[in-house]
């Protein structure tokens, strides 16, 4: 028995860690970022997520769709109803006119984020055969998540001398295979921030990663807050239940 417990615990720990190495390998060499949303008490930095949305709107949205998001969702990063209405109205989204004919019209908060291309084929035709992935859940769909996105955005460099780059491809330190179809999307001062934050490349990469992490996990802050309460409650219940168990069993031992 005494041997079984550590053996089983070790087995459980090992089995549980099977998932971990995949993440660890992906993060190897990537610059580590201290995200506001990591850890059990973490939550989104609204200001950063809003700056990230600004970047998405001005830069990423030219090629990348986020079709799972609606403009109303932006309330989740602290935008007001008026701001959301204004943002939605500034975008032309596909709809139908009164005679049932397709027609672009100003968006409403209920509109899906406007997709830059009507479909994948149109995107590939316009972009030299490349298809910019939808960014709705990209932060969950890549090993390393936001840390990977930050590394990718800041990871453009000149290719090593011995590397033969394919036509129209760009060298990136952190992209699998190092050849990426997307030209470096952000530089210093790519966007103008309305707050006093300086738009360095690193800062922009942090902000867009925060925004994309929020887009993929809009309930992360609420989830973690609820988790702290529930885990504390369950730990308390563990204590209570164990005490009751001791009491019940006391007439046996």
């Amino acid at each position, binding site marked *: 028995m005494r041997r079984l417990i550590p053996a089983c615990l070790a087995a459980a720990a090992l*089995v549980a860690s099977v998932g971990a190495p995949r993440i660890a390998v992906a993060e190897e060499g990537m610059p580590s970022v201290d995200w506001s949303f990591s850890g059990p008490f973490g939550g989104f930095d609204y200001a950063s997520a809003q700056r990230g949305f600004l970047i998405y709107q001005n830069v990423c949205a030219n090629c990348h769709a986020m079709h799972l998001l609606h403009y109303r969702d932006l309330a989740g990063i602290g935008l007001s109803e008026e701001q959301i209405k204004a943002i939605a109205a500034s975008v032309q989204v596909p709809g139908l006119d009164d005679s049932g004919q397709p027609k672009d019209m100003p968006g409403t908060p209920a509109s899906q984020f406007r997709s830059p291309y009507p479909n994948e084929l149109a995107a590939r035709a316009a972009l030299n055969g490349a298809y910019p992935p939808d960014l709705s859940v990209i932060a*969950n769909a890549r090993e390393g998540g936001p840390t990977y996105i930050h590394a990718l955005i800041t990871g453009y460099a000149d290719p090593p001398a011995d590397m033969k780059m394919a036509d129209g491809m760009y060298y990136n330190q952190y992209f*699998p295979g190092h050849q990426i179809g997307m030209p470096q999307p952000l530089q210093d001062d790519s966007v103008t921030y309305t707050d006093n934050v300086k738009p360095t490349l690193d800062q922009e990469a942090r902000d867009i990663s925060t925004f994309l992490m929020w887009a993929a996990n*809009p*309930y992360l802050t609420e989830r973690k807050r609820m*988790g702290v309460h529930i885990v504390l409650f369950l730990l308390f*219940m*563990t204590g209570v*239940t164990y005490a009751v168990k001791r009491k019940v069993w006391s007439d046996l*031992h």
Partner: protein
Amino acid sequence: MAGLYKSEFKNPVINWLDSRLPIFTMMQREYGAFPTPRNFNYFWSFGGLAMVALMVMILTGVFLAMHYVPAADRAFDSVEHIMRDVNYGWLIRYVHMNGGSMFFIVVYIHMFRGLYYGSYKSPRELLWMIGVAILLLMMATAFMGYVLPWGQMSYWGATVITNLFSAIPFVGKAIVTWLWGGFSVDNATLNRFYSLHYLLPFVIVGVVFLHVVALHITGSNNPLGIEPTGPQDTIPFHPYYTIKDMVAMVVFLTLWAALVFFAPNLLGNPDNYIPANPLSTPAHIVPEWYLLPFYAILRSIPNKLFGVIAMFGSILLLFVLPWLDTSPVRSANFRPLYRIFFIPFVIACVVLGIVGANPPQGSWLLIGRIATAWYFLHFLVILPLIGKFERPLPLPESILQPVLRQGGGSGGLPAGATAAPREVS
């Protein structure tokens, strides 16, 4: 014998009901007074934990099914709709998603407990076999559930696993087409997997019922592996084991909650957040962690047909385990040799899990082959032989004897120890 049952319940309503359908008497007998060995450790709580996991899975699953759309072009987005637009949909989905892992962790520990303490031996062979059937049903259910979000791993996992049946000589290809409902994994496949994923859990409930009935016929095994010799060796299930199982349950729920709230995607594969794309194969197609050991066995055999046979054989072997183990002594505590060989067996299982997560090349392939060989060696050679050569330690005369020695050591019986069970019997 026809006629009303003579219920002993005083409450007139309960008495009326119980006389016509004695479920109250049954519950009282099977979960109230049920005489249970007094020496369980917490490993005996894992059956109950599995029951909790099953119920939570069914409950969350029913609510997910209200919002999920089983169509190839909408499944992925409908899952995200649950995560974003359904009130607390993210919670229901993460509980269900991680619940699969928690269910398997609990069931695997439950099984290793059975292996260590010889719970599969006479007269509990059928109980064990029903349990193995539950494991098979769970694997099928979990596999089909993993297909439903229609991400890249869903799609390619489904393709790889269904393709295994093509290894069957002559009719393999036809069977795979029949399983798919077409010429590739597609909408028809998704639809039938959804239907079966909703059906099989209720089949599991039925088989779990048989498992519990069989358990209550033979009574539980216990850490000493000897049968109770009299009422002094047992205690009523309630309140002693209801409260002990509650402790285990709260700890179990704490771990589950920690996973759901703080790392809901830890055990998942990022690729499954990429919508299924039949034109792009992921670099590494891996199943969920709980199927990895079997995946490793499959890939460690160079021949496809024999790989499939080995994979299914590794589970089917468990059905005949009661007859492979030749030792009459149940608990490994009294089996010095088996106790030693149990350790490399557990290691082999864990190693197979790790190997399954890695590409079958180089040293991973070699390690996988050694672990696979050891797995089969353990059941087919080591177990039958140990029983012949091992000299078991002397068994205690009764369950109470070592309990008392551990407890106070004074030798005298505490008043409650003998009184409580006698009231019951």
